[in-house]
């Protein structure tokens, strides 16, 4: 690879250069935008998982503290509301 790069001719900076650069930059930008969107989705999934885990833990601890009082167990919507969540749907 290094031999290949060493033997490579210099890129011509004529009129064609900006079009070629434009085409490859467009491709790279599309790729980066896609990866960024996927990263946002994964962050949302991670946040939802964190909320669900904390809810499950709080429910388990409240059941352990007061057995037979399931009716007072908080619903997940209450739990999420107390955390200021928007239901986990928003990014």
């Amino acid at each position: 690879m290094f031999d290949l790069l060493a033997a490579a001719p210099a890129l011509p900076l004529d009129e064609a250069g900006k079009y070629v650069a434009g085409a490859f930059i467009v491709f790279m930008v599309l790729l980066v935008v896609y990866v960024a969107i996927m990263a946002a989705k994964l962050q949302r999934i991670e946040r939802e998982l964190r909320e669900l885990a904390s809810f499950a833990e709080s429910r388990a601890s409240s059941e352990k503290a007061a057995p037979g009082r399931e009716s007072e167990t908080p619903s997940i919507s209450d739990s999420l509301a107390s955390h200021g969540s928007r239901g986990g749907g928003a990014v």
Partner: protein
Amino acid sequence: MYGKGLRPLSIATVAMLAVSLSLVFFYAPLDADQGFIQKIFYLHVPLAIVALIGFVVGGVFAIAHLRTGNRKWDAYSYVSIHMSVIFGVAVLITGAIWAKASWGHWWVWDEPTLVSFLIVFLMYATYYPFRYAIEDPERQARYASVFAITAGAFVPLNFMAVRMAQSLVHPRTFATANGGLPGEMMLVFLCSLATMALLWVTLVKFELTAKSASGQVKRLRRALDAPAPGGSSRIAPEVS
């Protein structure tokens, strides 16, 4: 499950991208006719080929869905088409840039190759509103599969029709028995094609993994007796 092998696949894709770009700019000889602008060929044509094959693959997955009734194949079909539409956007933009540099126009309406690809792209662009318009998930998956099969069958027919058309301006990649390309150019082209195919597979796997994780979170939320989150999508099928 879907994330298995994603890391080595991603590393291989990045490595192949680096090798392909190096070959394009430092190994492939300059075209005698077009000069440096011909470098776009190594990006534009593989993207177009992979996008069109991806549409057909989406149709094949749709056939598997209709035959088995397994929603997994519907998700595969959806993601294949979704990724090919994204590749299609890149094809149209890079093609327009190449056209402007070579012919002096961003778009040429009497060129069969360009117009036929635009027709295929616009046809698949209707896939999303078509899916979204159907509420019932079962019907949505079934109708989307029928669409994917019909449109997937149209792609090779369209390709053959364009090949038979007598074009004067658009170059033919495989115009002659040996491909119409010198050996070095052919090597770089095949490397670029393999890279784009690998990129498509990696991104499809990436998307399926994300959908699978999202589906698992929804299952967990249901198991914890929770209401559905506000951001649930009716377009994209769930993968469990």
